[in-house]
């Protein structure tokens, strides 16, 4: 048993030493990109700050229900306010709302400084597979958005809410959710881009 353990350690050692080069990899990437390890660590530290200062885990998906609530109030105020979801989560200009709105701003600042503003509809990978119809990309993107937001509200979080904030709290439900998110995502991606 002891010998097997030491063999395992020896096998893992080379990979562990390459873990030490993490920072160096920043130079691997062209242009304005940052190393994923620096970005990941930054998001980790950001989650300390949101827990400490705002008593909130980082998350994006509740924003979409909040905006749906704002729109619902404009269209059918009484019906919207009678919905039980909004009675426990009333739509308001809250921390989460400002957080996501400012993510747009942050994305803009980063893209601007990196000369990566792209006012475009299509991506080469999409065009290779589905052609250059903007309408098709728009319709498919819209449908995907509907499904994803419904799923994330049902699951109670998204890639950030469950995938990062929930898992780092060691929440059992979040770990399960992330597994199922990746199962759904990988199966669909393979079907759309590699099948046939």
């Amino acid at each position, binding site marked *: 048993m002891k010998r097997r353990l030491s063999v395992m350690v020896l096998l893992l050692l080379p990979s562990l030493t390459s873990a030490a080069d993490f920072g160096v990899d920043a130079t691997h990437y062209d242009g304005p990109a940052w190393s994923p390890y620096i970005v990941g660590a930054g998001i980790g530290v950001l989650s300390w700050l949101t827990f400490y200062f705002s008593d909130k885990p980082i998350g994006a998906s509740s924003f979409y229900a909040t905006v749906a609530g704002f729109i619902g109030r404009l269209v059918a105020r009484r019906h919207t306010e009678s919905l039980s979801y909004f009675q426990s989560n009333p739509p308001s200009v809250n921390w989460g709302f400002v957080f996501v709105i400012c993510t747009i701003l942050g994305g803009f600042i980063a893209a601007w400084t990196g000369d990566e503003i792209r006012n475009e509809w299509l991506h080469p990978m999409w065009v290779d597979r589905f052609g250059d119809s903007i309408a098709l990309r728009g319709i498919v993107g819209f449908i995907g958005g509907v499904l994803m937001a419904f799923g994330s509200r049902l699951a109670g979080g998204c*890639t950030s809410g469950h995938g990062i904030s929930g898992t780092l709290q060691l929440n059992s439900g979040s770990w399960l959710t992330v597994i199922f998110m990746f199962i759904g995502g990988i199966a669909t991606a393979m079907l759309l881009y590699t099948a046939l």
Partner: protein
Amino acid sequence: MFDEPVKLVLGLVTGILFGVLLQKGQVAKFQVLMGQFLLKDFTVVKIMAMAIAVGTVGVHALVSMGLAEFHIQTASLARVIVGGVLFGTGLSIFGLCPGTSVAACGEGRRDAMIGVLGMFVGAGVYVAAFEALQPMIKAMADYGKVTLPQLTSTSPWLWVGALVALIAIALAIVERLHPKRLNTKL
């Protein structure tokens, strides 16, 4: 209708930082996210794993010092399984997730803006159907708001230590197999 200004300013600062990190990490890009789900580009997993490893140590330290509180979601199987699979399916159809799509809007991506509109609709449908969905949700088991240390009656620090070690090993292997990302220059 409005939270206190202090909370909103904190949301503003952290939101901007989050957007900058997502865009600079290249995860506001369709090809990087799809590359992950096609298992060709591991940028998303590298960022998520690193964020979890760094985040879990600090947040557990804050909680054990009484400076923060956990926000645990319930482990309802219907929500976790159906919601998780629907989310993943929608993500791969659209090509971006709820956080990265808003960062992509900041990049000017038109298709991301349409996807965001779709997400307002999807979230609205869920809210409207919330009552009607309850029988389905309640028909399946719900393990409640339980963390992995609680589930196993062990110390959270044991889990934190093991998780950080596991992520270090997993990232070392991933980095060896997939050192570069796909070309994101357009």
